[in-house]
């Protein structure tokens, strides 16, 4: 599980859903959750939270990709790749700390990913869980 720390900078509520924007060292990451400031008291601007998401939910793209629906993007550099037959574990170093991504070995080859390359790690907003620190 990847963990990133940040501070809630905005909450948009609709019914029982909230779209929470979290400022992580200047990078804005968004998460959609089934909770509102009424049901969870930690949901307030300024609260420090952790963003939790599974390694398998990270999408890796080469920088420069523009037209894609994923808006949570973190610029990172690959520091290591552990190879399996089908899956690879890609270790990424970013301003927000070390991240791990599990993607297919095929994709690693297709994108010719290797340590030292700069990539964009992207996460869908419905894959991020919040946990108050």
């Amino acid at each position: 599980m990847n963990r990133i720390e940040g501070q809630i900078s905005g909450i948009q509520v609709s019914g029982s859903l909230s779209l929470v924007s979290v400022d992580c060292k200047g990078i804005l990451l968004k998460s959609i959750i089934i909770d509102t400031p009424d049901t969870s008291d930690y949901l307030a601007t300024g609260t420090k939270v952790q963003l939790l998401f599974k390694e398998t939910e990270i999408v890796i793209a080469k920088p420069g990709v523009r037209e894609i629906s994923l808006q949570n993007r973190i610029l990172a550099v690959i520091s290591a790749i552990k190879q399996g037959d089908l899956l690879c574990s890609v270790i990424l170093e970013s301003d927000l700390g070390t991240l791990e991504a599990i993607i297919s070995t095929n994709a690693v080859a297709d994108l010719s990913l290797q340590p030292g390359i700069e990539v964009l790690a992207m996460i869908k907003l419905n894959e991020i869980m919040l946990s108050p620190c």
Partner: protein
Amino acid sequence: MITAQFNKKLWSAQGGMQLDIQMELQQGECLTLYGDSGAGKTSALRILSGLLQPDSGRIEVGGETWYDSGKNINLPPQKRNIGYVFQDYALFPNLTARENIAFGLRKGESSALLEELITITSLGELQHKKPGQLSGGQQQRVALARALVRQPKLLLLDEPMSALDHLTRSHLQDFILEARQRYGFTVILVSHDLGEIIKLSDRVAVLGNGVISREGSPAQVFMQHKISGKFQFSGKILGIEQQEVVWIVTLLIGANLVKVVVTEKEIQGLSIGDQVIVASKAFNPILQKIRDL
């Protein structure tokens, strides 16, 4: 309202231990005592029930003093009106299920409650059998009904379901919830089963080395962090196997086996037998209606 504070020096194979407990319960609340074996959970129940005398302290239940070392008050178990379900059920082998339950009735007391308890524990068919002819779950139901026949203010459950299979356990938990609503007694439960604790208790007190080290709602106590994921279950790790760069963990959640993929970093610190919380976002699971056959 129950307030209790007591001390007792306990001796075990590991040496001496000072039991020092302080607790407060609201009427109708269910508190679970959780902790390693030998942490003093059973001793705490025995002290509350009067089977074991503490070295000092005070126990007050609903305005009535049960024990006060300062005033030399120590009500015997007979006068404390407690429902107690023992780990081994302690059913009387010479009496039938019905006689076991009726044994707790006071002289001249009507048997209306007896009939009611036999009905809600579904013991009607079995009431004339002796405990030796009953299965573990059936014996457990008799023990529960017997504990309730004196309409206790406080029900103490000492790992009551540890020896039962999952389905039986689940039925009994439902019964305890139902009975609690019906009769309004307060419960103190000793349990190791995370699912059971979350289902039954309002509050958990973690007992370690004779003292309560942590206290709070089951969620507060058992989840290191509150997680917003709505798809949450507690389960037990049955198997761990490495597949390439990930590990596949087999979990028992309720009566279902599920598998979860985790990474190397997470697998450290997890081992077979561990109780875990499984969390995911409500956005991920898909639902498919099971066709009626």
